[in-house]
């Protein structure tokens, strides 16, 4: 069974304090690993898709990386507006539906 585990469940950072969120996955043949941002009461907002180990993608203060077993979302010098829940999801071979992790709830304090 395809599984996605995110850690930590919650993370509290001071503004400017860089950190990383982890997404460990077990899938039968990865077809894509997706990162989404979810604000309270809103739907997930697409951030990145990664397809193969070694791939990296960046957007503003966020950088996503991928290995054969996990992905990291690095947040550099975060601001309070980066506070949100960050979701990781994987798609396995056979174009199966996205399987989501529970997310990491990030709070950035000014």
């Amino acid at each position, binding site marked *: 069974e395809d599984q996605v585990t995110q850690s930590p469940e919650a993370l509290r950072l001071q503004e400017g304090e860089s950190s990383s969120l982890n997404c460990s996955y077990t899938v039968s043949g990865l*077809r*894509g690993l*997706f990162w*989404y941002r979810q604000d309270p*009461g*809103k*739907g*997930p*907002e*697409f951030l990145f*898709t990664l*397809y193969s180990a070694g791939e990296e993608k960046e957007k503003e203060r966020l950088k996503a990386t991928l290995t054969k077993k996990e992905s990291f979302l690095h947040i550099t010098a975060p601001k309070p507006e980066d506070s949100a829940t960050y*979701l990781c*999801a994987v*798609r396995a071979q056979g*174009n199966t*539906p*996205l*399987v*989501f*992790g*529970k*997310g990491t709830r990030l709070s950035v304090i000014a």
Partner: protein
Amino acid sequence: EPEVTQTPSHQVTQMGQEVILRCVPISNHLYFYWYRQILGQKVEFLVSFYNNEISEKSEIFDDQFSVERPDGSNFTLKIRSTKLEDSAMYFCASSGRPRGTFNEKLFFGSGTQLSVL
């Protein structure tokens, strides 16, 4: 920027009643999805829809659920006889590319919070 629109934002219903959740996907998208998120739980896949038919559904999507694209813009999820455990946030999503293709992006709506009493 184009967005997926869902109505209503909140729906309260009595157990056993029928509800219809509505979605307007992004206009040039062809692939449509419903997901749900029970409070504190993961986002879960319900159903995917393409070319006016269901392409895949999960175990959650039993005979009480149905989807329809009644016209060129709306995409609906009907729950025929709601149960307490149907209480969740329901998200509609759409994509302009087939599932699993390169650069696929799923765009989600803001959701409908369904409360079954």
